């Protein structure tokens, strides 16, 4: 079955969506990420959608589900690279993605995850 690759980097899982996802492909990503968070003991998930030229209600809901599920599994999800035209369209469509944290690009997304994730001594890392 067709799948979107998930890379592991330390305690993060990185996904770059490079194809126009049909619905089942998006659902597969949701399932795969949920399983990989547990299997790889991941603390953060970074999803780069800068290559996506549209996000409809289905893909929006899948991204939101991924964020919710990762939180239940004690991991944080950040979605990066939303194109301006996509953001404008999402708002007009009425999609608010309430559970999703976003950042402009991969670098700031990783920085955001680093701030969100507690360091091993239990304190939130407050470097900015």
């Amino acid at each position, binding site marked *: 079955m067709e799948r979107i690759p998930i890379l592991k980097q330390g305690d993060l899982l990185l996904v770059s969506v490079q194809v126009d996802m049909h619905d089942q492909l998006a659902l597969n990503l949701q399932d795969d990420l949920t399983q990989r968070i547990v299997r790889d003991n991941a603390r953060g998930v970074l999803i780069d959608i800068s290559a996506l030229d549209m996000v409809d209600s289905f893909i929006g*809901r899948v991204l939101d589900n991924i964020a919710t599920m990762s939180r239940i599994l004690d991991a944080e999800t950040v979605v990066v690279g939303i194109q301006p035209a996509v953001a404008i369209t999402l708002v007009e*469509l*009425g999609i608010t993605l309430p559970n999703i944290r976003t950042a402009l690009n991969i670098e700031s997304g990783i920085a955001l995850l680093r701030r969100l994730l507690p360091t091993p001594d239990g304190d939130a890392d407050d470097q900015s």
Partner: protein
Amino acid sequence: MTKADTLPIHTEEDIVRVRQMTRSLAQQSGLNLVDQTKIVTAASELARNTLVYGGGGHVILERLQDAGRAGLRLTFEDQGPGIADIELALRDGYTSGKGLGLGLSGAKRLSNEFHIDSRVGEGTTVSIIKWKS
């Protein structure tokens, strides 16, 4: 003057093809990037409704050239169960399934013109137009 293409909508991959064809016709019609994205997203919502609720159907894609105006019209047709209460179906947040209930109302907001014609037991036709701004 119009040129029409028809695409079937029977699988999830067909929804992707509808998006891609809509994008390419929107570009050819001279729509700007935001308007392209809006009509592609509306097309995706309506194609999914055709598949999920209409039991499949097709879309007619037409480039419009009207008194100097350029635009794109998409007409989604199915012979499914139809919609008993169109006003309710168009309400933000109403879904008979497990969606967000934003597809129809959102597609209407994302378009310049929106028409829906549905008969219970006969099927549904939804047509949208995006004009070049």
